[in-house]
């Protein structure tokens, strides 16, 4: 792990990952209570990808996410209150209670949406990058998608166009081995090493350990800068794993318990903590403080959300047309 973080940055990194973890666990509880409904896809186990990649961005870069978007939103520092309120369908939610878990938006943070059509966000990201290029803005778009999304025609069409026009897109492929219950070996012709697909489009690509937040940062930073300085799109494949089901409705019988256990030994949070402690970057006491504050943040978020109002029925027709 050649990259080193100063204490403040390291604590922040830990804090974000921990926040995501606890937030997601809380979501699961709220779902069981029936306060969150619909499809709920948790990011538990994948925290290092969002935090490593997103903390390497500038504030005005764009982010485009998928339906498993809480982690990205929290890493981008969207207000946890607003996210939780959104999950509970409240008017104070980041999308006014209209989008729900799969469709978080906060344009003020460059968070251009969670998208629930697999692969549908890829052309959107290419379009945002087109606007950056057209307007000569100093921005990039970071676009998250899963291994399953690689199989959609969208992947092909979007990478081709991004490369053809040398657009500032950082494609972040979160390869957690499964699209719902289907292992990539059963859905992609070349199985592992999906990043090699980028060759077809002349897009530089790298595969990294997505359980290691430092590895993610180390890879992401130069690639982002390359893209920012006009080098065209890049692709990062982060090998990761979700510790939980695809969604709360997942029967979960398609994964081997041993496989799950093995991946859990690579827990990105523990891994980072071990590293930081062993390098004396921060101490157990720092962790305790953060854990406490993060728990409070999550508790507050729930409280805020529960106390918020549902949208008025009369508001239903707002924002369809100008």
């Amino acid at each position: 792990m050649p990259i080193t973080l100063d204490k403040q940055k390291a604590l922040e990194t830990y804090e974000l990952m921990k926040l995501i973890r606890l937030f997601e666990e809380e979501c699961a509880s709220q779902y069981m209570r029936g306060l969150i409904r619909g499809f709920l896809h948790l990011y538990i186990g994948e925290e290092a990808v969002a935090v490593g990649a997103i903390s390497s961005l500038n504030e005005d870069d764009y982010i485009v996410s998928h339906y498993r978007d809480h982690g990205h939103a929290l890493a981008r520092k969207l207000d946890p209150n607003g996210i939780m309120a959104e999950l509970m369908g409240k008017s104070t939610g980041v999308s006014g209670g209209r989008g729900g878990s799969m469709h978080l938006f906060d344009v003020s943070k460059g968070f251009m949406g969670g998208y629930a059509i697999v692969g549908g966000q890829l052309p959107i990201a290419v379009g945002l990058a087109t606007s950056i290029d057209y307007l000569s803005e100093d921005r990039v778009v970071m676009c998250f998608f899963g291994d399953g999304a690689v199989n959609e025609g969208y992947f092909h069409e979007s990478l081709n166009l991004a490369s053809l026009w040398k657009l500032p897109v950082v494609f972040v492929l979160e390869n957690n081995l499964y699209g719902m219950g289907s292992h990539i070996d059963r859905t992609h012709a070349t199985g592992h090493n999906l990043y090699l697909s980028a060759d077809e489009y002349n897009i530089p690509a790298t595969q990294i350990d997505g359980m290691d937040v430092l590895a993610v940062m180390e890879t992401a930073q130069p690639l982002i800068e390359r893209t920012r300085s006009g080098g065209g799109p890049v692709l990062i494949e982060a090998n990761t794993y979700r510790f939980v089901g695809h969604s709360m409705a997942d029967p979960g019988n398609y994964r081997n318990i041993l496989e799950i256990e093995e991946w859990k030994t690579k827990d990105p949070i523990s891994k980072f903590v071990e590293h930081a402690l062993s390098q004396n970057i921060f101490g157990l006491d720092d962790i305790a403080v953060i854990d406490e504050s993060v728990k409070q943040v999550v508790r507050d978020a729930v409280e805020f959300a529960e106390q918020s109002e549902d949208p008025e029925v009369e508001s239903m027709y707002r924002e369809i047309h100008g």
Partner: protein
Amino acid sequence: MGKLTVRESISKGLYEAMDSNERCYLLGEDIGEYGGAYAVTKGFLDKYGEKRVRDMPIAESVIAGAAVGSAMGGLFPIVEIMTINFTLLAMDQIVNHAAKMRYMSNGQIQVPMILRTVTGGGGGLAATHSQNFEGWYANVPGLKVVTPSNPYDALGLMRSCIESKDPVIYVEHCLLYSVTGDVPEEYYNVPLGKSVVCREGQDVTIVTYGGMVSVCLEAADKLSEQGIEAEVIDLRSLRPLDIETSVKSVCKTGRAVVVEENWKTGGFGAEISSSLQENAFDYLESPIIRISGEEVPMPYSRKLESAAIPDASKVTITIKAMMEI
């Protein structure tokens, strides 16, 4: 006679299709190991193996297109597209290919296949996952569209779909899977293009299909308490469309309400309403009224979602107002 859920009925139909025809196979995302997003095909992989139960990459276009091609080559594919929202990604294969093949080849090719998919809102899935596009498919000559509303029809219609030599879109409403109902042990089927009077009445005719049938029946019960007897008609299939049954009813009642979950403007309810008007004009005592989903992308919030989807009280209020005129 036994009780089955809609889910079990559809499964039963699929088992029959698989058992009676070796050329029948299933394909779709996560229909195998995962058991299907709505668990309809649970157990099929174990029973029939990977050759006949195929988990697909997330690639709706090639899923639908491969089904069409394999039907042209002599197989009988039953495809699952996880929800009707995702059929938009397969639409070119369905509308420009499946539906055109037989006609354009002057009958040299047939495309026997069933494309199962899930329609409707109410599950808190918001705008991209709560739509009702079956009416669009019903606009397309060359396709058939069936919309079961209960376990009996789910099985009976499936059996007819299995006999079809042409592509059928078999539309399952997301809220119906756990609904139970009587299903005879002995063989029967429900023909395509035959709607059914599921409740008799002489004051007003309610025409509907799919997920809205139970809503209308509930409304009819409430109306009955208030002395209004509604006749409720379940279309069962949108293409072929049996309008006769509804026309006959309207000639009797003199009044009609069409209920659908889809957005009103340009929705399939307009087809029903205009066909009724064309065929029962002289019998109408008041305008045919459409009750439809609110014209908004479906909001996630439960409160808004409930307000956006027609419910029994909307139906009763509308009908009571209508009767007073």
